[in-house]
Protein backbone atom coordinates (compact mmCIF):
# COMPACT_ATOMS: atom_id res chain seq x y z
CA UNK A 1 0.00 0.00 0.00
CA UNK A 2 2.73 2.37 1.05
CA UNK A 3 4.91 1.27 -1.82
CA UNK A 4 2.14 1.95 -4.31
CA UNK A 5 1.66 5.41 -2.81
CA UNK A 6 5.35 6.09 -3.10
CA UNK A 7 5.41 4.95 -6.71
CA UNK A 8 2.48 7.15 -7.61
CA UNK A 9 4.05 9.98 -5.75
CA UNK A 10 7.44 9.72 -7.42
CA UNK A 11 5.79 9.61 -10.80
CA UNK A 12 3.82 12.71 -9.96
CA UNK A 13 6.95 14.47 -8.79
CA UNK A 14 8.86 13.83 -11.97
CA UNK A 15 5.97 14.82 -14.19
CA UNK A 16 4.67 17.89 -12.46
CA UNK A 17 7.44 18.92 -10.07
CA UNK A 18 5.34 18.77 -6.97
CA UNK A 19 6.60 20.64 -3.95
CA UNK A 20 3.91 19.41 -1.62
CA UNK A 21 1.48 16.56 -1.81
CA UNK A 22 -0.98 15.51 0.85
CA UNK A 23 -2.96 12.30 0.73
CA UNK A 24 -5.90 11.16 2.77
CA UNK A 25 -5.55 13.75 5.50
CA UNK A 26 -8.13 13.24 8.19
CA UNK A 27 -8.59 15.20 11.37
CA UNK A 28 -11.34 14.98 13.98
CA UNK A 29 -12.00 17.32 16.88
CA UNK A 30 -14.12 15.27 19.21
CA UNK A 31 -17.21 14.56 17.14
CA UNK A 32 -16.44 17.16 14.49
CA UNK A 33 -14.72 15.82 11.41
CA UNK A 34 -12.76 18.86 10.32
CA UNK A 35 -11.08 17.06 7.42
CA UNK A 36 -11.92 13.74 5.80
CA UNK A 37 -9.38 12.12 3.50
CA UNK A 38 -8.27 15.31 1.84
CA UNK A 39 -5.75 15.11 -0.98
CA UNK A 40 -4.00 17.99 -2.65
CA UNK A 41 -0.92 18.61 -4.79
CA UNK A 42 0.97 21.87 -4.85
CA UNK A 43 3.26 22.41 -7.83
CA UNK A 44 6.61 24.04 -7.50
CA UNK A 45 6.40 27.73 -8.43
CA UNK A 46 2.62 27.93 -8.45
CA UNK A 47 0.05 29.83 -6.47
CA UNK A 48 -2.40 27.35 -5.07
CA UNK A 49 -5.56 28.65 -3.46
CA UNK A 50 -7.75 26.81 -1.00
CA UNK A 51 -11.29 28.10 -0.84
CA UNK A 52 -14.39 27.01 1.00
CA UNK A 53 -17.13 28.25 3.31
CA UNK A 54 -16.54 29.06 6.97
CA UNK A 55 -15.65 26.02 8.98
CA UNK A 56 -14.77 24.00 5.89
CA UNK A 57 -11.45 22.95 7.41
CA UNK A 58 -9.09 25.26 5.52
CA UNK A 59 -7.13 26.42 8.53
CA UNK A 60 -7.04 22.88 9.86
CA UNK A 61 -5.47 21.75 6.60
CA UNK A 62 -2.74 24.35 7.02
CA UNK A 63 -2.24 23.39 10.63
CA UNK A 64 -1.65 19.82 9.59
CA UNK A 65 0.77 20.77 6.84
CA UNK A 66 2.78 23.05 9.10
CA UNK A 67 2.72 20.51 11.92
CA UNK A 68 0.88 22.74 14.35
CA UNK A 69 -1.62 19.91 14.66
CA UNK A 70 -1.20 16.22 13.96
CA UNK A 71 -3.37 14.38 11.47
CA UNK A 72 -5.37 11.37 12.62
CA UNK A 73 -4.38 9.68 9.37
CA UNK A 74 -2.97 10.54 5.99
CA UNK A 75 0.44 11.50 4.72
CA UNK A 76 2.27 14.66 3.80
CA UNK A 77 5.02 14.64 1.18
CA UNK A 78 7.31 17.60 0.76
CA UNK A 79 10.40 17.99 -1.43
CA UNK A 80 10.49 14.28 -2.14
CA UNK A 81 10.10 12.91 1.39
CA UNK A 82 7.47 12.46 4.07
CA UNK A 83 7.48 15.05 6.80
CA UNK A 84 4.87 13.43 9.00
CA UNK A 85 7.34 12.90 11.79
CA UNK A 86 8.90 16.34 11.74
CA UNK A 87 8.07 18.89 14.41
CA UNK A 88 6.46 22.12 13.29
CA UNK A 89 9.71 24.00 13.98
CA UNK A 90 11.67 21.56 11.84
CA UNK A 91 9.15 21.91 9.02
CA UNK A 92 9.55 25.68 9.22
CA UNK A 93 13.31 25.29 9.02
CA UNK A 94 12.79 23.19 5.92
CA UNK A 95 10.98 26.10 4.36
CA UNK A 96 7.30 25.61 5.20
CA UNK A 97 6.45 28.93 6.77
CA UNK A 98 3.02 30.42 7.31
CA UNK A 99 1.06 33.48 8.27
CA UNK A 100 -1.88 33.14 10.60
CA UNK A 101 -5.53 33.93 10.06
CA UNK A 102 -5.24 36.16 13.12
CA UNK A 103 -2.10 38.18 12.55
CA UNK A 104 0.78 36.92 14.62
CA UNK A 105 3.76 39.23 15.10
CA UNK A 106 6.01 40.30 17.97
CA UNK A 107 3.97 43.22 19.31
CA UNK A 108 6.60 44.44 21.77
CA UNK A 109 9.29 44.72 19.07
CA UNK A 110 9.88 47.42 16.51
CA UNK A 111 8.90 46.52 12.95
CA UNK A 112 12.56 46.17 12.08
CA UNK A 113 13.26 43.85 15.00
CA UNK A 114 10.36 41.66 13.91
CA UNK A 115 12.15 41.11 10.63
CA UNK A 116 15.49 40.73 12.39
CA UNK A 117 14.08 37.96 14.54
CA UNK A 118 12.77 36.19 11.46
CA UNK A 119 16.23 36.31 9.89
CA UNK A 120 17.72 35.01 13.11
CA UNK A 121 15.25 32.15 12.98
CA UNK A 122 16.42 31.28 9.48
CA UNK A 123 20.13 31.58 10.26
CA UNK A 124 20.10 29.63 13.50
CA UNK A 125 23.20 29.90 15.79
CA UNK A 126 21.29 32.04 18.20
CA UNK A 127 23.19 31.49 21.43
CA UNK A 128 25.38 34.54 20.82
CA UNK A 129 25.48 36.57 24.00
CA UNK A 130 28.06 39.24 23.47
CA UNK A 131 27.62 41.25 20.28
CA UNK A 132 24.49 43.38 20.05
CA UNK A 133 22.26 42.47 17.11
CA UNK A 134 21.86 46.19 16.48
CA UNK A 135 25.54 46.37 15.53
CA UNK A 136 25.22 43.52 13.05
CA UNK A 137 25.09 45.46 9.79
CA UNK A 138 24.33 42.43 7.66
CA UNK A 139 21.21 41.41 9.51
CA UNK A 140 19.93 44.98 9.88
CA UNK A 141 20.33 45.78 6.20
CA UNK A 142 18.71 42.57 5.14
CA UNK A 143 15.81 43.06 7.60
CA UNK A 144 15.26 46.54 6.20
CA UNK A 145 15.06 45.12 2.67
CA UNK A 146 12.20 42.84 3.64
CA UNK A 147 10.32 45.74 5.20
CA UNK A 148 10.83 47.77 2.04
CA UNK A 149 9.64 44.85 -0.05
CA UNK A 150 6.24 44.85 1.65
CA UNK A 151 6.09 48.64 1.76
CA UNK A 152 6.88 49.19 5.41
CA UNK A 153 10.19 50.91 4.75
CA UNK A 154 9.04 54.07 6.52
CA UNK A 155 7.97 52.23 9.64
CA UNK A 156 11.04 50.33 10.73
CA UNK A 157 11.20 52.04 14.12
CA UNK A 158 7.49 51.85 14.76
CA UNK A 159 6.47 49.63 17.59
CA UNK A 160 4.69 46.71 15.97
CA UNK A 161 1.75 47.06 18.36
CA UNK A 162 1.20 50.57 17.04
CA UNK A 163 0.94 49.55 13.40
CA UNK A 164 -2.47 49.46 11.75
CA UNK A 165 -4.15 46.12 11.14
CA UNK A 166 -3.16 46.15 7.48
CA UNK A 167 0.42 47.08 8.27
CA UNK A 168 0.65 44.27 10.77
CA UNK A 169 -0.46 41.79 8.15
CA UNK A 170 2.23 43.16 5.86
CA UNK A 171 4.77 42.89 8.64
CA UNK A 172 3.86 39.27 9.18
CA UNK A 173 4.34 38.68 5.47
CA UNK A 174 7.74 40.42 5.62
CA UNK A 175 8.75 38.12 8.47
CA UNK A 176 7.71 35.04 6.60
CA UNK A 177 9.59 36.22 3.51
CA UNK A 178 12.65 36.89 5.64
CA UNK A 179 12.87 33.19 6.42
CA UNK A 180 13.23 32.60 2.66
CA UNK A 181 10.53 29.94 2.56
CA UNK A 182 10.19 27.33 -0.12
CA UNK A 183 6.50 26.95 0.55
CA UNK A 184 4.81 30.10 1.71
CA UNK A 185 1.45 29.49 3.33
CA UNK A 186 -0.96 32.36 3.83
CA UNK A 187 -4.15 32.06 5.85
CA UNK A 188 -6.55 34.66 4.46
CA UNK A 189 -4.00 37.39 3.74
CA UNK A 190 -6.70 39.86 2.68
CA UNK A 191 -8.88 39.49 5.77
CA UNK A 192 -9.73 42.85 7.27
CA UNK A 193 -7.75 44.89 4.76
CA UNK A 194 -9.15 48.06 3.22
CA UNK A 195 -9.78 48.06 -0.51
CA UNK A 196 -6.57 49.95 -1.19
CA UNK A 197 -4.61 47.66 1.10
CA UNK A 198 -5.93 44.50 -0.51
CA UNK A 199 -5.04 45.91 -3.88
CA UNK A 200 -1.42 46.38 -2.92
CA UNK A 201 -1.40 42.99 -1.19
CA UNK A 202 -2.58 41.36 -4.43
CA UNK A 203 0.20 43.13 -6.31
CA UNK A 204 2.71 42.04 -3.71
CA UNK A 205 1.63 38.42 -3.84
CA UNK A 206 1.59 38.50 -7.64
CA UNK A 207 5.17 39.71 -7.60
CA UNK A 208 6.18 36.85 -5.32
CA UNK A 209 4.88 34.37 -7.83
CA UNK A 210 8.04 34.18 -9.93
CA UNK A 211 10.30 32.92 -7.17
CA UNK A 212 8.01 31.36 -4.59
CA UNK A 213 5.47 28.66 -4.19
CA UNK A 214 2.37 29.94 -2.46
CA UNK A 215 -0.42 28.08 -0.76
CA UNK A 216 -3.11 30.52 0.24
CA UNK A 217 -6.52 30.40 1.79
CA UNK A 218 -8.72 33.13 0.46
CA UNK A 219 -12.37 34.08 0.65
CA UNK A 220 -12.30 36.80 -1.95
CA UNK A 221 -13.08 35.09 -5.27
CA UNK A 222 -11.79 37.98 -7.37
CA UNK A 223 -8.45 37.64 -5.66
CA UNK A 224 -8.42 33.89 -6.08
CA UNK A 225 -9.25 34.01 -9.76
CA UNK A 226 -6.74 36.75 -10.48
CA UNK A 227 -3.82 35.18 -8.60
CA UNK A 228 -4.22 31.44 -8.40
CA UNK A 229 -2.91 28.85 -10.82
CA UNK A 230 -4.78 26.05 -9.07
CA UNK A 231 -7.67 25.95 -6.68
CA UNK A 232 -8.78 23.33 -4.19
CA UNK A 233 -12.29 23.65 -2.84
CA UNK A 234 -13.06 22.35 0.63
CA UNK A 235 -16.54 21.88 1.94
CA UNK A 236 -17.28 20.39 5.35
CA UNK A 237 -13.88 18.77 5.43
CA UNK A 238 -14.05 17.24 1.97
CA UNK A 239 -12.06 18.36 -1.06
CA UNK A 240 -14.98 18.63 -3.46
CA UNK A 241 -13.09 20.07 -6.41
CA UNK A 242 -9.63 20.79 -7.61
CA UNK A 243 -8.21 22.33 -10.75
CA UNK A 244 -7.46 25.50 -12.65
CA UNK A 245 -9.63 28.52 -11.76
CA UNK A 246 -11.71 28.40 -14.94
CA UNK A 247 -12.71 24.84 -14.24
CA UNK A 248 -13.59 25.64 -10.63
CA UNK A 249 -15.69 28.61 -11.67
CA UNK A 250 -17.94 26.41 -13.71
CA UNK A 251 -17.98 23.48 -11.31
CA UNK A 252 -21.48 22.74 -10.12
CA UNK A 253 -20.47 21.22 -6.81
CA UNK A 254 -18.61 24.38 -5.96
CA UNK A 255 -21.55 26.54 -6.81
CA UNK A 256 -23.67 24.37 -4.54
CA UNK A 257 -21.22 24.70 -1.67
CA UNK A 258 -21.33 28.44 -1.99
CA UNK A 259 -25.03 28.65 -2.68
CA UNK A 260 -26.70 30.90 -0.17
CA UNK A 261 -23.39 31.97 1.26
CA UNK A 262 -23.28 35.67 1.79
CA UNK A 263 -19.71 36.66 1.16
Amino acid sequence: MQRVALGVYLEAVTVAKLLLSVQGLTKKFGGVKALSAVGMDVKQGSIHAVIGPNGAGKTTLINLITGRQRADSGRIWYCGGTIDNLSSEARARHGIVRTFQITSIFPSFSALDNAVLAIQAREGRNFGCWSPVRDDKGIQVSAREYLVQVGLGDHEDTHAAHLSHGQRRLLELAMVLATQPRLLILDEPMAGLSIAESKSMVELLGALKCENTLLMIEHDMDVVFSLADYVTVLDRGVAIACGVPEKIRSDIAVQKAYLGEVD
Partner: protein
Amino acid sequence: MDTAVGKVVSISLLVIFAVMPVLAPLVGEPYYVDVFARIMLWAMAALGLNLILGFGGMVSFGHAAYVGVGAYTVGILSHHGVSSGFLQWPLAIGLSGIFAAIFGAISLRTRGIYFIMITLAFSQMLYFLAVSLEQYGSNDGLLVPERSDFSIGTLHAGIDDDHAIYYVILCILVLCLYAKSRLIAGRFGMILKGIKSNETRLQALGVSTYRYRLAAFTLSGMICGLSGVLFANFEGFVSPDLMHWTRSGEVLIMVILGGAGMLFGPLFGATVFLLLSEVLARFTDYWNIIFGPILILVVLYAKGGIGGLFRGRNRG
Protein backbone atom coordinates in the same frame (compact mmCIF):
# COMPACT_ATOMS: atom_id res chain seq x y z
CA MET B 1 15.98 52.41 31.22
CA ASP B 2 16.22 53.98 27.81
CA THR B 3 15.78 57.50 29.01
CA ALA B 4 18.50 59.80 30.28
CA VAL B 5 16.68 60.04 33.62
CA GLY B 6 16.70 56.29 33.96
CA LYS B 7 20.42 56.14 33.28
CA VAL B 8 21.18 58.91 35.77
CA VAL B 9 19.09 57.25 38.48
CA SER B 10 20.71 53.86 37.84
CA ILE B 11 24.24 55.23 37.95
CA SER B 12 23.47 57.31 41.05
CA LEU B 13 22.20 54.20 42.77
CA LEU B 14 25.44 52.39 42.01
CA VAL B 15 27.41 55.39 43.31
CA ILE B 16 25.43 55.29 46.56
CA PHE B 17 26.31 51.63 46.90
CA ALA B 18 29.95 52.44 46.23
CA VAL B 19 30.23 55.10 48.94
CA MET B 20 28.10 53.33 51.54
CA PRO B 21 30.98 51.70 53.48
CA VAL B 22 32.42 55.18 54.01
CA LEU B 23 29.17 57.05 54.40
CA ALA B 24 27.29 54.80 56.81
CA PRO B 25 29.84 54.96 59.66
CA LEU B 26 30.10 58.72 59.16
CA VAL B 27 26.39 59.23 59.85
CA GLY B 28 26.57 56.79 62.76
CA GLU B 29 24.74 53.91 61.08
CA PRO B 30 27.51 51.41 60.27
CA TYR B 31 24.88 48.70 60.33
CA TYR B 32 23.65 49.92 56.96
CA VAL B 33 26.77 48.65 55.26
CA ASP B 34 25.49 45.15 55.93
CA VAL B 35 22.01 46.08 54.78
CA PHE B 36 23.37 47.38 51.51
CA ALA B 37 25.57 44.34 51.02
CA ARG B 38 22.50 42.15 51.44
CA ILE B 39 20.57 44.31 49.02
CA MET B 40 23.26 43.69 46.43
CA LEU B 41 23.22 39.96 47.08
CA TRP B 42 19.46 39.70 46.66
CA ALA B 43 19.64 42.07 43.70
CA MET B 44 21.99 39.60 42.04
CA ALA B 45 19.59 36.73 42.65
CA ALA B 46 16.76 38.91 41.33
CA LEU B 47 18.86 39.75 38.30
CA GLY B 48 19.23 36.05 37.66
CA LEU B 49 15.49 35.52 37.93
CA ASN B 50 14.78 38.57 35.80
CA LEU B 51 16.67 36.97 32.95
CA ILE B 52 13.96 34.35 32.59
CA LEU B 53 11.00 36.21 34.10
CA GLY B 54 11.48 39.66 32.67
CA PHE B 55 12.98 38.74 29.35
CA GLY B 56 11.72 35.22 28.78
CA GLY B 57 8.35 35.41 30.55
CA MET B 58 8.94 32.38 32.80
CA VAL B 59 7.63 32.85 36.34
CA SER B 60 9.85 30.64 38.49
CA PHE B 61 8.82 30.40 42.11
CA GLY B 62 11.87 28.50 43.25
CA HIS B 63 14.96 30.49 42.52
CA ALA B 64 16.09 30.78 46.12
CA ALA B 65 16.96 27.08 45.80
CA TYR B 66 19.88 27.90 43.51
CA VAL B 67 21.07 30.60 45.90
CA GLY B 68 21.02 27.86 48.51
CA VAL B 69 22.93 25.40 46.35
CA GLY B 70 25.67 27.98 45.78
CA ALA B 71 25.84 28.92 49.44
CA TYR B 72 25.78 25.36 50.75
CA THR B 73 28.49 24.23 48.33
CA VAL B 74 30.81 26.90 49.72
CA GLY B 75 29.69 26.20 53.28
CA ILE B 76 30.17 22.44 53.11
CA LEU B 77 33.52 22.66 51.33
CA SER B 78 34.75 25.21 53.84
CA HIS B 79 33.44 23.04 56.68
CA HIS B 80 35.70 20.26 55.41
CA GLY B 81 38.66 22.57 55.18
CA VAL B 82 38.52 23.18 51.43
CA SER B 83 38.65 26.93 51.24
CA SER B 84 40.24 27.58 47.87
CA GLY B 85 37.98 29.92 45.95
CA PHE B 86 39.31 28.54 42.70
CA LEU B 87 37.70 25.25 43.64
CA GLN B 88 34.68 26.47 45.60
CA TRP B 89 33.33 29.04 43.17
CA PRO B 90 33.30 27.05 39.92
CA LEU B 91 31.96 24.03 41.76
CA ALA B 92 29.19 26.03 43.43
CA ILE B 93 28.17 27.81 40.26
CA GLY B 94 28.44 24.59 38.26
CA LEU B 95 26.25 22.70 40.73
CA SER B 96 23.62 25.43 40.70
CA GLY B 97 23.69 25.23 36.93
CA ILE B 98 23.27 21.46 36.96
CA PHE B 99 20.34 21.61 39.35
CA ALA B 100 18.76 24.41 37.33
CA ALA B 101 19.27 22.43 34.12
CA ILE B 102 17.63 19.31 35.54
CA PHE B 103 14.76 21.09 37.25
CA GLY B 104 14.35 23.39 34.28
CA ALA B 105 14.28 20.53 31.79
CA ILE B 106 11.26 19.12 33.59
CA SER B 107 9.53 22.35 34.66
CA LEU B 108 9.76 23.96 31.25
CA ARG B 109 7.52 21.28 29.79
CA THR B 110 4.68 22.87 31.74
CA ARG B 111 3.13 26.31 31.49
CA GLY B 112 1.51 28.96 33.61
CA ILE B 113 0.41 27.98 37.07
CA TYR B 114 1.82 24.46 36.64
CA PHE B 115 5.24 25.90 35.96
CA ILE B 116 5.01 28.04 39.08
CA MET B 117 3.96 25.05 41.19
CA ILE B 118 6.58 22.67 39.86
CA THR B 119 9.45 25.12 40.31
CA LEU B 120 8.18 25.67 43.83
CA ALA B 121 8.06 21.92 44.44
CA PHE B 122 11.63 21.43 43.28
CA SER B 123 12.90 24.22 45.49
CA GLN B 124 11.06 22.76 48.47
CA MET B 125 12.78 19.46 47.73
CA LEU B 126 16.16 21.12 48.10
CA TYR B 127 14.98 22.99 51.17
CA PHE B 128 14.03 19.77 52.91
CA LEU B 129 17.23 18.16 51.74
CA ALA B 130 19.16 20.94 53.50
CA VAL B 131 17.02 20.51 56.62
CA SER B 132 17.74 16.80 56.64
CA LEU B 133 21.52 17.25 56.51
CA GLU B 134 22.18 16.72 60.21
CA GLN B 135 25.93 16.77 59.93
CA TYR B 136 25.62 20.23 58.38
CA GLY B 137 23.41 21.69 61.06
CA SER B 138 19.89 20.84 59.82
CA ASN B 139 17.60 23.75 60.61
CA ASP B 140 20.24 25.61 62.57
CA GLY B 141 22.48 25.99 59.58
CA LEU B 142 26.18 25.73 59.17
CA LEU B 143 29.00 28.09 60.06
CA VAL B 144 31.39 28.87 57.26
CA PRO B 145 34.72 28.83 59.11
CA GLU B 146 36.65 30.91 56.61
CA ARG B 147 36.03 32.92 53.51
CA SER B 148 37.12 31.75 50.09
CA ASP B 149 40.83 31.92 49.62
CA PHE B 150 42.30 33.08 46.34
CA SER B 151 45.96 32.74 47.18
CA ILE B 152 48.25 31.44 44.46
CA GLY B 153 51.43 29.92 45.85
CA THR B 154 52.89 32.47 48.21
CA LEU B 155 50.84 35.31 46.76
CA HIS B 156 48.12 35.85 49.32
CA ALA B 157 44.71 37.01 48.14
CA GLY B 158 41.50 36.77 50.11
CA ILE B 159 38.34 38.63 50.92
CA ASP B 160 38.66 38.54 54.70
CA ASP B 161 38.46 42.27 55.11
CA ASP B 162 34.84 43.46 55.46
CA HIS B 163 35.38 46.28 53.01
CA ALA B 164 37.01 43.88 50.61
CA ILE B 165 34.02 41.55 50.50
CA TYR B 166 31.64 44.49 50.15
CA TYR B 167 33.49 45.77 47.13
CA VAL B 168 33.91 42.31 45.65
CA ILE B 169 30.14 41.95 45.80
CA LEU B 170 29.68 45.37 44.21
CA CYS B 171 32.14 44.61 41.43
CA ILE B 172 30.54 41.27 40.65
CA LEU B 173 27.10 42.85 40.64
CA VAL B 174 28.24 45.53 38.19
CA LEU B 175 29.89 42.85 36.04
CA CYS B 176 26.67 40.84 36.04
CA LEU B 177 24.68 43.91 35.05
CA TYR B 178 27.08 44.63 32.23
CA ALA B 179 27.15 41.03 31.02
CA LYS B 180 23.39 40.94 31.09
CA SER B 181 23.08 44.14 29.12
CA ARG B 182 25.23 42.55 26.43
CA LEU B 183 23.30 39.32 26.57
CA ILE B 184 19.86 40.84 26.15
CA ALA B 185 21.00 42.91 23.19
CA GLY B 186 22.60 39.90 21.52
CA ARG B 187 21.08 37.16 19.42
CA PHE B 188 20.21 35.02 22.41
CA GLY B 189 18.55 37.97 24.13
CA MET B 190 16.50 38.69 21.03
CA ILE B 191 15.26 35.11 20.98
CA LEU B 192 14.39 35.28 24.69
CA LYS B 193 12.43 38.49 24.24
CA GLY B 194 10.77 36.97 21.20
CA ILE B 195 9.66 34.00 23.30
CA LYS B 196 8.08 36.33 25.81
CA SER B 197 6.47 38.45 23.13
CA ASN B 198 4.99 35.66 20.97
CA GLU B 199 6.35 32.15 21.31
CA THR B 200 3.95 30.67 18.76
CA ARG B 201 5.21 33.08 16.12
CA LEU B 202 8.82 32.23 16.88
CA GLN B 203 8.12 28.51 16.60
CA ALA B 204 6.27 29.04 13.35
CA LEU B 205 9.40 30.76 12.06
CA GLY B 206 11.36 27.62 12.85
CA VAL B 207 12.89 28.28 16.27
CA SER B 208 12.82 25.37 18.71
CA THR B 209 12.20 27.56 21.72
CA TYR B 210 12.60 24.91 24.41
CA ARG B 211 16.38 24.77 24.21
CA TYR B 212 16.64 28.53 24.51
CA ARG B 213 14.31 28.62 27.47
CA LEU B 214 16.32 25.85 29.11
CA ALA B 215 19.63 27.63 28.47
CA ALA B 216 18.23 30.81 29.99
CA PHE B 217 16.82 28.93 32.96
CA THR B 218 20.18 27.27 33.60
CA LEU B 219 22.07 30.52 33.27
CA SER B 220 19.69 32.24 35.63
CA GLY B 221 20.19 29.44 38.16
CA MET B 222 23.94 29.92 37.89
CA ILE B 223 23.66 33.63 38.59
CA CYS B 224 21.62 32.81 41.68
CA GLY B 225 24.29 30.27 42.60
CA LEU B 226 26.91 33.00 42.35
CA SER B 227 24.86 35.17 44.64
CA GLY B 228 24.74 32.21 47.06
CA VAL B 229 28.52 31.88 46.94
CA LEU B 230 28.80 35.50 47.99
CA PHE B 231 26.13 35.03 50.65
CA ALA B 232 28.11 32.25 52.32
CA ASN B 233 31.23 34.37 52.25
CA PHE B 234 29.55 37.51 53.44
CA GLU B 235 27.44 36.07 56.25
CA GLY B 236 29.90 33.37 57.27
CA PHE B 237 26.84 31.23 57.74
CA VAL B 238 24.41 29.24 55.63
CA SER B 239 21.04 27.84 56.64
CA PRO B 240 17.99 26.28 54.98
CA ASP B 241 16.23 29.59 55.53
CA LEU B 242 18.07 30.84 52.45
CA MET B 243 16.07 28.37 50.35
CA HIS B 244 12.72 28.78 52.04
CA TRP B 245 9.85 29.34 49.63
CA THR B 246 9.20 32.77 51.11
CA ARG B 247 12.69 33.74 49.92
CA SER B 248 11.81 32.65 46.39
CA GLY B 249 8.67 34.74 46.72
CA GLU B 250 10.65 37.74 47.85
CA VAL B 251 13.02 37.50 44.90
CA LEU B 252 9.98 37.30 42.65
CA ILE B 253 8.50 40.40 44.29
CA MET B 254 11.79 42.28 43.91
CA VAL B 255 11.81 41.59 40.18
CA ILE B 256 8.21 42.68 39.70
CA LEU B 257 8.56 45.65 42.04
CA GLY B 258 11.65 46.87 40.24
CA GLY B 259 10.22 46.36 36.80
CA ALA B 260 10.47 42.99 35.11
CA GLY B 261 12.42 43.01 31.90
CA MET B 262 14.48 46.04 32.79
CA LEU B 263 18.20 45.84 33.30
CA PHE B 264 18.32 47.77 36.55
CA GLY B 265 14.88 46.63 37.68
CA PRO B 266 16.16 43.97 40.10
CA LEU B 267 18.52 46.46 41.74
CA PHE B 268 15.68 48.96 42.20
CA GLY B 269 13.40 46.22 43.42
CA ALA B 270 15.84 44.75 45.92
CA THR B 271 16.77 48.20 47.22
CA VAL B 272 13.21 49.36 47.76
CA PHE B 273 12.02 46.00 49.10
CA LEU B 274 14.79 45.53 51.65
CA LEU B 275 15.11 49.18 52.70
CA LEU B 276 11.37 49.53 53.10
CA SER B 277 11.08 46.38 55.19
CA GLU B 278 14.07 47.56 57.23
CA VAL B 279 12.57 50.97 57.90
CA LEU B 280 9.03 49.76 58.49
CA ALA B 281 10.28 47.09 60.87
CA ARG B 282 11.78 49.85 63.03
CA PHE B 283 8.48 51.62 63.39
CA THR B 284 6.23 48.73 64.11
CA ASP B 285 6.21 45.00 64.62
CA TYR B 286 3.26 44.77 62.26
CA TRP B 287 5.21 46.16 59.33
CA ASN B 288 4.00 43.40 57.07
CA ILE B 289 0.48 44.80 57.29
CA ILE B 290 1.72 48.07 55.78
CA PHE B 291 4.21 46.47 53.44
CA GLY B 292 1.78 44.10 51.77
CA PRO B 293 -0.65 46.76 50.54
CA ILE B 294 2.23 48.96 49.34
CA LEU B 295 3.48 46.11 47.19
CA ILE B 296 0.04 45.44 45.82
CA LEU B 297 -0.41 49.12 44.97
CA VAL B 298 2.90 49.26 43.13
CA VAL B 299 2.15 46.13 41.16
CA LEU B 300 -1.35 47.37 40.30
CA TYR B 301 -0.62 50.98 39.50
CA ALA B 302 3.00 51.16 38.41
CA LYS B 303 2.74 48.59 35.67
CA GLY B 304 6.41 48.52 34.77
CA GLY B 305 7.45 48.58 38.43
CA ILE B 306 9.80 51.24 39.74
CA GLY B 307 12.04 51.01 36.69
CA GLY B 308 8.95 51.65 34.56
CA LEU B 309 8.72 55.16 35.98
CA PHE B 310 11.96 56.07 34.22
CA ARG B 311 11.17 54.26 31.08
CA GLY B 312 10.76 56.14 27.84
CA ARG B 313 9.23 54.30 24.98
CA ASN B 314 8.52 50.67 25.23
CA ARG B 315 11.12 48.39 23.79
CA GLY B 316 11.18 44.68 23.29
